[in-house]
């Protein structure tokens, strides 16, 4: 990035500069990254270690290396191998990927809409996916196979996002404020449609749908990792690469255009990537609420509003939050399973309130 636009940016939005008065001391910057990545690693390890089924740590290591083709000479039963390799590893990977996708999408969309309340649900991914899944369950096509539900969710989410984007663009170019309003309206409509479907469903269907709406990583198979993982990773990379233009977009569309940002292209890229990351996550895990909203706010206090740092940090924070919540979902009520969405809300809200309380300035100041 050239110095020209950035200098202008600093001048007009002093809080975007490195010297801005952050609620946490600036010196915490490097430490923040260290703590976050260490937290991620720790949670990954905890997710591999803890669970309803007891597997000793050397055996876990044995299984992991055994799967990589290295025989450490540690004996383990096939059942232990199944628990670690068939259940825990894909579930841990899905949790991290889904969380990262939601966190970074939230950060990008909050920046794009210049609104601290924006989250991935706003562009219609979640409600489109929920509607498609509810419809699929009630119509009964979910019995065709394991793949029906994820595909319905993914397509439903993407189709609705592009409908909303297309509608907002009818005025000639996509006004983000229009898209926000259209998104809210369509979400309300689909909420009603889902309620209607619920009201016509029988007990089993009702429970299926509600359980899906609450989100769960319980059924994470390797197949899901193979399919959803690359999609989420690509979307995350695309979003990180749009961090610079996104910074300039906070000045306003016209200003950003004058600074050389291709506004339409950036908007479409960000919306698409966010829809991909969220849609792929929703397809495998159901609706996991709060992460997209909270993760960016959590890290914004520490790294500031610069999207080049905010977005990777949000991805990290999202992964950490979902890994932590899923650890709880698997273990708290064992042998039963707790809905993931409930836990993300339970964990996320107090953290959020604490941060609001902690911050000396309004959380909205980054916009």
């Amino acid at each position, binding site marked *: 990035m050239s110095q020209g636009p950035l200098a202008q940016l600093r001048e007009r939005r002093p809080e975007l500069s490195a010297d801005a008065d952050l609620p946490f001391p600036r010196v915490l910057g490097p430490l923040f990254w260290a703590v976050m990545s260490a937290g991620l*690693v720790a949670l990954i390890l905890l997710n591999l270690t803890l669970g309803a089924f*007891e597997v000793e740590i050397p055996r876990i290591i044995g299984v992991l290396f055994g799967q990589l083709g290295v025989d450490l000479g540690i004996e383990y039963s096939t059942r232990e191998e199944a628990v670690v390799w068939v259940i825990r590893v894909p579930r841990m990977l899905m949790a991290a990927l889904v969380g990262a996708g939601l966190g970074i999408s939230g950060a990008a969309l909050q920046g794009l809409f210049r609104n601290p309340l924006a989250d991935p649900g706003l562009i219609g991914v979640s409600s489109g996916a929920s509607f498609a899944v509810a419809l699929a369950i009630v119509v009964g096509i979910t019995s065709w196979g394991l793949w029906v539900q994820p595909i319905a969710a993914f397509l439903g989410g993407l189709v609705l996002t592009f409908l909303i984007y297309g509608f907002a663009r009818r005025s000639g170019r996509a006004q983000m404020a229009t898209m926000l309003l259209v998104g809210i309206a369509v979400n309300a409509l689909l909420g009603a449609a889902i309620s209607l479907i619920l009201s016509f469903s029988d007990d089993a269907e009702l429970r299926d749908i509600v359980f899906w709406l609450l989100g769960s990583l319980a059924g994470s198979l390797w197949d899901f990792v193979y399919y959803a993982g690359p999609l989420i990773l690509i979307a995350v990379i695309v979003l990180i690469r749009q961090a610079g233009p996104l910074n300039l977009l906070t000045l306003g569309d016209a200003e950003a255009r004058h600074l050389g940002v291709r506004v339409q292209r950036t908007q479409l890229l960000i919306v698409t990537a966010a829809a991909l990351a969220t849609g792929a996550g929703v397809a495998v895990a159901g609706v996991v609420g709060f992460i997209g909203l909270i993760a960016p706010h959590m890290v914004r206090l520490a790294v500031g509003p610069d999207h080049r740092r905010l977005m990777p940090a949000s991805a990290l924070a999202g992964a950490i939050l979902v890994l932590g919540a899923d650890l709880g979902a698997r273990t708290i009520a064992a042998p039963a399973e707790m809905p993931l969405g409930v836990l993300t809300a339970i964990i996320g809200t107090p953290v959020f309130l604490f941060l609001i309380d902690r911050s000396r300035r309004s959380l909205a100041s980054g916009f």
Partner: protein
Amino acid sequence: MTQLIGWSLRRDSVLVVIGLLIVWLLVASACSGGDQSQPETGTEPQDAVIAQESVAAEEASEEIAAEDERQEESAAAGLEQAEQEAAASEEDQQRQVMQQGQQEQADAASQQQALQQAQQQGQQEVTEAVAEGTRLITLFGDLTEIVYALGAEAYLVARDTSSIYPPEAEELPNLGFAGGLNAEAILEFEPTLVLGTPMAGPPGVLEQLEQAGVEVLIFEDVNTLEAPQIKIRRIGEVLGIPMRAEALALDVAKRLEAVMAEAANEKPLSVLHVYTRRGGLQLVSGEGNRAQAMIEAAGGVDAAAAAGIVGWVLLTPEALVAADPDVYLVMDRGLEVVGGVEGLLQIPGMSETRAGRGPYIISMPDLYLLGFGPRLPEAIADLSGYLRGVQAEIEAE
């Protein structure tokens, strides 16, 4: 501003990660060290049960051996043949029971009694038994009931939250709602066979179980009165006790026939099954649902089906008036969540029908009424009895 993320990431976190790795190993080994006592205490009772069983089995077989050593030899040789013959003749008889008159039924009954007596005398341990090492998990109340009714409950290691009958079943570990399972928690019980309904899930979890080498059997929903027999036979088959299952299925069929003959009614009441649930969404059950089969078997008429309602529809005052039933049939749990009889009648339209003016409300336990397990005949008899009571009250007015 020029600080690169990757740079600081690499520099700072490597040390912290190594540190945390060590901490993780320490904490987790401490955790698993503490947890190691848990599985011991957890599995101890199960081991004890198995041990007791095997002791009991040994004792039983010793008794048999002591009682008639010579007979046992000849019996062991002839038993397989006898079993096949018995099964074949049973099937024939069962068909006759279903199709023809009561004489054969009586014959079948006596045959079946003889069969049961034979089983009680301890021969079943020789002829057929659940395979050694079977560890069973049932994921719905009706399936659990059948396993108990088949006398195979010793092989059950866990159940879902709907499995509340017989009361002993509640002592089994509860895996929670069958639609929200945790594969790892299931594997913890080291099952060899998991029985479930289409509600069991999420689908990925069942897939994980199969990948982990657990056999998963899903019983499709059957909404007719043959459901208990179908489920019983299939469970008997997979558990390797088809004769015991056949006897139980025949017994259910016999009781069902008797109950239905008793329940037949010249002036049937029209009954509306209302499925009340939390959140203000009430459903009316119509054509093709289990409630219809129950109501008709108990000598009533399904009011909603008669009014042309198919499947489940949202309860509206119009739907109620269209059906205008004599009696409401609800489930205990559903009645509870809407606030009892008063709460039920406050739902718009509910008090505007003949049933509401009475008010005539029949409430039965969920699993008993719609589980379609081995207690189906008794549930029909009860419902029929309640309907007669209501009829008497209406006539007295």
